[in-house]
């Protein structure tokens, strides 16, 4: 009996090893990495109103600590943004995000808290980016999603306008839809 067990476990572990060792076999980019690059581009193409754009302060990008995007976004931490740089903040709950967040990345984990987050962000100039259709439908500014095997984005023009942010016309042009 002991032996069967040992054999079974060994087979299983070898199988796993085999699976893990063959991590990748096609030249395609990781979704998370490409999304992070999109987020960086969005930040470059957005102008904050003067009262929110304080000289010498890092542009804080806030994300749910448990979101799979949190680790992907590390790539753009410390990247230059105009005269400044970008700083990633991983928060355990976005519902309690500090006022210093200038960009928020939301995913399906934040669905339950989205109403609260949205109320909190009313009358502020915080750029909201999401890859969740629910949150997008609930008024996030940029919806980043996979279409076929490519990533495209929608812009909610009204939400952007309400927040006092300005988006470059190039971004609006490249969006799949901007309503």
């Amino acid at each position, binding site marked *: 009996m002991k032996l069967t067990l*040992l054999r079974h476990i060994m087979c299983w572990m070898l199988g796993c090893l085999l699976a893990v*060792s*063959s991590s990748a*076999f096609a030249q395609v980019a*990781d979704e998370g990495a490409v999304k992070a*690059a999109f987020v960086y581009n969005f930040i470059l193409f957005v102008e904050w109103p003067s009262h929110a754009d304080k000289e010498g302060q890092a542009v804080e990008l806030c994300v749910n600590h448990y979101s799979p995007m949190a680790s992907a976004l590390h790539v753009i931490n410390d990247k230059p943004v105009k005269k400044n740089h970008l700083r990633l903040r991983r928060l355990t709950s976005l519902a309690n995000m500090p006022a210093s967040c200038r960009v928020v990345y939301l995913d399906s*984990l934040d669905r339950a808290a989205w109403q609260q987050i949205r109320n909190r962000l009313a009358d502020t100039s915080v750029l909201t980016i999401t890859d969740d259709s629910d949150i997008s439908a609930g008024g996030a500014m940029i919806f980043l999603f996979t279409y076929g095997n490519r*990533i495209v984005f929608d812009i909610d023009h009204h939400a952007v306008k309400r927040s006092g942010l300005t988006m470059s016309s190039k971004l609006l042009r*490249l969006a799949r839809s901007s309503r």
Partner: protein
Amino acid sequence: MLLFSLISLFQVLTFLLKGQQSMTERDRGKLTPAPLFPAISKLVLITFFGVLPSFAQAAQPDGDWTDVPIEGLLDMKVYSASRFVQDVKEAPSAVTILTASDIKTYGWRTLAEALRSLPGLYTSYDRNYTYLGSRGFLRSGDFNARFLLLIDGNRANDPIYDQARLGSDFALDIDLIDRIEYVPGPGSAVYGSNAFFGVINVITKRGRDLNGWQISGEAGNYGTRKGRVSHGWKNESGAELLLSATNFYREGKDLFYPEFKVSTSDGIARHLDYDRSQNVFLKGSAGPFTVSLVHSKRTKGTPTASYEQEFNAPGSKIIDEQTLASFDFKHALSSGTELSTRVFFNEYKFLGDFIYSNTPSTPPHRVNRDDHAARWWGGDVKILSTSLARHRMVAGLELQNSDPIKMDNYDVNPYLVKQAARHQNSRLGVYFQDEWQLLNDFMLNTGLRYDHNSAASGNNLNPRLGVIYQLSPLTTIKALYGKAYRLPNAYELYYAIEGDGGQKINPESKPEQIHSYEMVLEQRLSASSRLRFSAFRNKVTNLITLIEDPADGNYVFRNSRKATAAGLEAALEQGWRNGARLRTSYAWQRAKDDETGAILENSPRQISKLNFSIPFFHNQWRAGFETFYVSSRNTLNSQTAGHTLSNLTLFSDRLAKNVEVSASVYNLFDKRYADPVGKELVQESIVQDGRSFRIKLTYNF
């Protein structure tokens, strides 16, 4: 190539274990380690030829694409491995999520088939109902009363049997499921009674998920047909509506039961394995309001002559009918606090026709009928607050009233009342839960619920405690404790019927209890791969068991057993750049009766699983392959052999615009296997279906 190596790996494994088993049967105790080494060398070969080439071209970091201009990003092809691994909310509880796309990829026909792919879960089918087992516990003859089934948060376990219906008797068409959240472990600290081994929360699709008409048809062998018409609609302001109707019919096959092969019968049950169901579903939402209505009726022939019925008697059948209606309201009270309330009204009807012979055995037979019905309604209020820094708090109150609970039993012709029982009960529960992020890498998850029940010595307090420590950004350790309970249901308390195969009431029954301890280690290996180890110990007391009272030969439910289950689980999830995905798990467990020391019935020592899917033919198709090994299980007096079951599904939604097609083969290698069953059957185990097929076509317009 990888798919092949995985399949062959599992084949080797299966072969090995089968070899081992027959050897054990032949000469017990004289085991030689010889078969291990050929297997390993085979594995090494597979690794070498099957995987090495791909390994060589891999191993590059996930990449920094910020130098690419945004136009270039829009042109890049991506794979979404991380979403696959996202599955589990990394934090407080170990929720596993199965999605609509998993259901399509693996061709799952029932909720039970979907749940069976999760670590440590296994099923049993007695040709009336499908039973779910967890971590070594599957109580033959109960009705899944130790799992709480929620449909969009609404309790679907009825008050008579507390049954979670997971087979073709599930209230919904499985195509209407958006996702299935499975929370393993005791959940009574939040959900009250029945959240004993786990909570299954089914989230249904919404109007926007269909956005138009959808018709779907499927056909399979054993005369299986299913058709569905659905319509989804959404307007500018966000209001949406989903309507759907399904009709399912399976003719079944003639089944041979050697136990009934006697001079007067050839042991074949003819035309009694039919299964048919109808479902309708409506869900609408506007602003903070959601209304939903589920109705289903399922009729199943009984080919097994359960409860000492006449064998191969036409007319032996069961009918389950359920209606679940709920009305929800969600409202943000402040920026950090959300209120949600719900009122629900549910109804369940059961009709069972049991055919008994007269003496001497000549038709017409005596038809004995169970005519049961229950209504349960109530409401709940829940407040979720994150306004206190580092806390996520939930407080709630639940009220449920079940009235009437009707359990009638009578002979149909001549009409003779055997039992006319009317009962009612009410439950009230208050609970509080807090996720407290004490330190950046340290979280405390506490929960407590108090329940007052009008029946069965009813007050109960159930705590839960979880300590979650983030050792590094990639490693999480959790220590979890929880207590849960299950009230005896109305059937166990009050059902009585005289005569052969009869049953007695036992209003003195007490609730069952479980204490559960678990340690979990979660290790993220890369953005697209995660490994999870878990060690658990579950202690169950006052287990309500159907026993035969030696005094009078009648069945009765008693708090007669104590049992302990301990075990280890390991699970790996992995995604690849080309879109291939793997979920595999291994569970070892030992569930013993505390008094006799015997291994429980229907409790496999080992379970291993593999679910692998891969796109092929220019991403137009996806192949989903799953294979499960379940080691031998004790039946009441004997044993079933261990078995490996494999299913293969090919799915495409890109062949033509708006069209989805899929083709599935279940029990691919046509393995013969049997599931242990309860005392109400003469058979020790019931042989399951051999190889079967299904094709399915869905059209959106």
